[in-house]
């Protein structure tokens, strides 16, 4: 009897795994078929106004990059605080819970929130609002990754550091962070991969434009938002371009994920 249940469990779980993989495969195949048609060097060297995606790639990376540039140091410091300094205090538990709640907040809510506090006073969509929205998305991921990875560092290592005459901040800086480095790096790459593909937080915040833009005070090009816009265009050419852009974005996100895994595998 137990053998039968065992076999059944294996069968069911394999079935579900295959089902999941099947849909993933379907999505990828569709993307490749529909996206590769318009995929050529031209689109990487021209802006959307000329039927290319150069300004979109640029815009997406500037928005996500700036969000990461601000969010990563803030998040790591907050994570260090939670794990190393505030571990038992109520305040730390509160922050930790808050960060978890933030992480599970629907991204459209984040977009609307930033719309209310930045876009409305500004009067129009702009790059900074997009950065802020992605920052809000990224921050809790970085905080909890750092928090988790630091918690995996054995206490013995911290004690050994203190026993050798290192002050608390030396132990954290030279020993604990180093020991957790690989895990934190992986988390950061995955966090970046996560926000680089976000649409909803950017929809009302950065908006998107067909032109190249370098001033974050203006409406800023965004790949995801433009894909969303283009996909509903009547012009078939533009729809095809949307597919190509989606394929490019998917490849970028997948490469970032693979990079994240590669880091883990090589450093352990």
């Amino acid at each position: 009897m137990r053998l039968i249940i065992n076999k059944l469990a294996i069968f069911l779980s394999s079935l579900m795994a295959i089902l999941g993989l099947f849909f993933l495969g379907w999505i990828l195949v569709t993307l490749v078929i529909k996206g590769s048609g318009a995929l050529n060097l031209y689109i990487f060297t021209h802006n959307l106004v000329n039927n290319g995606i150069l300004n979109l790639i640029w815009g997406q990376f500037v928005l996500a990059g700036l969000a990461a540039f601000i969010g990563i140091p803030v998040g790591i410091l907050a994570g260090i605080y939670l794990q190393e300094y505030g571990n038992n205090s109520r305040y730390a538990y509160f922050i930790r819970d808050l960060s978890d709640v933030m992480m599970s907040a629907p991204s459209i809510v984040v977009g609307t929130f930033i719309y209310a506090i930045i876009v409305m006073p500004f009067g129009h969509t702009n790059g900074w609002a997009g950065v802020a929205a992605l920052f809000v998305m990224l921050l809790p991921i970085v905080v909890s990754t750092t928090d988790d990875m630091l918690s995996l560092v054995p206490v013995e290592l911290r004690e050994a550091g203190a026993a050798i005459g290192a002050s608390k901040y030396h132990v954290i800086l030279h020993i604990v962070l180093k020991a957790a480095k690989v895990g934190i790096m992986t988390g950061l790459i995955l966090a970046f991969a996560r926000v680089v593909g976000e649409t909803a937080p950017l929809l009302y915040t950065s908006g998107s434009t067909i032109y190249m833009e370098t001033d974050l005070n203006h409406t800023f090009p965004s790949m995801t938002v433009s894909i969303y816009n283009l996909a509903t265009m009547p012009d078939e050419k533009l729809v095809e371009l949307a597919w190509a852009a989606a394929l490019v974005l998917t490849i970028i996100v997948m490469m970032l994920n693979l990079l994240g895994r590669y880091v883990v595998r090589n450093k352990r």
Partner: protein
Amino acid sequence: MNNKLEIKDFSFTYRGAKSASLCNINMSIPTNKVTAIIGPSGCGKSTLLRSMNRIHDIYNGNIYEGEILLLDEPQQQNILLIKKENDFIKLRQRVGMVFQKPTPFPMSIFDNVAYGLRLSGTKNKRLLKEKVVKALKDVALWEEVKERLYDDARGLSGGQQQRLCIARVVALKPEVILFDEPTSALDPLSTLAIEEMIIELKKNYTIVIVTHNMQQASRISDYTAFMYLGKLIEFDVTENIFINPKNKKTEDYITGRFG
């Protein structure tokens, strides 16, 4: 007999614990000797040892009572009065500690030993290297690692890692070295290597070792303390404890009747 540490009416209570883990301990740790602490699991051996360099204090809220005097004739200092981080650092440079599990830092073999030296103010590169090499030789690790000083220390075997951790402590030239079951995670050969090293080290250092291994205590220690339920039951020259214990509890424990 010269003493390095004097523990007087010492009691210790962990943060939030209902009762004290150590009650009224009185003992003296003689200079340049090996003192072993034995006793059944949970009797407070680690707690006592960890009081001697106040490593407990990286977690706050523990309660100390009594005195632990660190002697350096003619000076003496009650280490239980230390409050400032700087003074803790000075104390731990004088009283080093080796843990049960090897704890190599996530850096090269060289840096593992150099780290504490740099913190304590050795900046000169040549001097640093000299001290590192000396420490590695002192723990009989030099021959095994001289070709790969700059490799990650986590690539060493468990026994080598443990000797590296001892080198790290020895490099700082402390006055006392505390060992908390330093060989319980090691194979018999590595254990033997470390025991021989401890006997060698006592020429220059005062050593306190917690061990569950009765043979080990009798092989390497000059004095032995037997603890039971947070109390020091008997403390004497090692031969007396093992051959001619005065207390019934000690005798029962030595002969393996409980524990």
